């Protein structure tokens, strides 16, 4: 499974009068709130991330993708905590090394260098997907700590 994102500890899940202001946002991508206070868009490398987009698509009838439509209700994980992310969320195309600092990258992804540092890779763990009969090869995930409070 691709784009695996799990908030495993902490954070504040904020989702009051909040909608996406563009397409291509999915849970786990870095986002920024707009000046109107009710919209979120993908964070770029030159922006201060407000948090991760988060949440199931509740108002869409039996959704076939986790990518939000533009204007769709969304949550924002703010504050600090820990999360698991698959390789898909990293600009480099590979998991960051342990202890690597994490920065806002392009298109809501995470880079290991940049202007706005928001976290650190703490461990690499293995998750066994529910496929393959008896899965012997797991999926490597990065366990990261994050803190978006610095940008408030």
């Amino acid at each position, binding site marked *: 499974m691709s784009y*695996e994102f*799990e908030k495993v500890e902490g954070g504040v899940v904020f989702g009051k009068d909040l909608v996406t202001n563009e397409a291509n946002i999915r849970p786990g991508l870095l986002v920024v709130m707009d000046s109107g206070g009710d919209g979120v868009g993908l964070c770029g490398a030159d922006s201060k991330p407000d948090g991760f987009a988060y949440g199931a698509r509740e108002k869409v009838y039996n959704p076939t993708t*986790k990518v939000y439509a533009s204007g769709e209700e969304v949550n924002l994980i703010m504050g600090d905590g820990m999360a*698991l992310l698959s390789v898909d969320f990293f600009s480099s195309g590979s998991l960051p090394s342990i202890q690597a600092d994490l920065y806002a990258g392009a298109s809501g992804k995470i880079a290991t260098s940049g202007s706005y540092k928001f976290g650190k890779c703490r461990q690499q*763990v293995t998750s066994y997907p529910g496929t393959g*009969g*008896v899965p012997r090869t797991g999926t490597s995930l990065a366990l990261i700590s994050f803190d978006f409070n610095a940008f408030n």
Partner: protein
Amino acid sequence: MSKLGEIIQFDKRVGFILPVEENGKVRAAYSGESVMNEVDALLADLARGGSSGDARQDHILLAQAIVPPIAQAIPYTRWTEMFFMPVNYSHGEDNRLAVEDITTLAWQTTGESQVMFTAPGYLWTRPTFIEFDSGIEMYWRRMERAGWNVLQRAMERVRSDIARQIDTNAQTALDAAISGVSHNSTVSGGKVTKAAVDAIIKAAQQIGFPMTMAMINPGTMTDMTSWSGGVFTSGLAEEDRREMVTSLYIGRYGGIQWYTNPNCPTDYVYFSGPASNGAYEQRRGGMRTYSDVDIVRKLDLHTVLSGEYAWYVGNAYNYWSLQVTS
């Protein structure tokens, strides 16, 4: 002048109308024109004999007693059906299927550390329905001239063609799923080998989805006669030996029920566990035929519509294929 019926009769052995012979000679001589007139009258009588009040029915009934040509192609029977669970939908009904979206992780921990949570998600998929159709124009004159039920044979061919189209699409869905999990393998040399089949059986056992059935062309299956090694070297059980001699294959090799269908490609063998472990064939509506009469063009129109079909392989790990290359 003699009546036509007195000088011709239908010969069931050969399926043709033949002149009645007496002492090796045709009973009466007829001019070609008068014979044609009488034949036309006879066919017209046959058509009216339907007495259905429906011209289309009358045309279909026309001269049905005449034996059709011996078919040179067998009716198409589907071979992909056994790999899918059939599910019927009504029009307007959502054909959504749930897709698993779960990440879990267990940790070695200390007694005082916080528990880390993951949250299961949900997703659906909606396979796309496709459908097939075909049509036949049946000129009245052609039916008359043919003298046998051409339409029936044509309709059988149409049904076969539609079944073939359905199989082609089901096979495409199956192939895509199988290659997606790298369960497709190849054996060279133009024959299905024991080693290649054994490797698939072993790999399937290793992941906990053992193969229980296989679909193979019956000709391809006779490659078993060249197998060696294992029980084929040390000696087969008596019942297997007898089956090998009489059918040129063992229909239960490897704990698999081997199904044969001459429509299955000769260069592919497909394996699977129970279909309930793997895939759906969604169906909406059934096969329908509609007919109409075109009196301007003097023909009947027959339209055959398939139902709608969609395929979804939910667990590709249940399926394997073996391609035989030269």
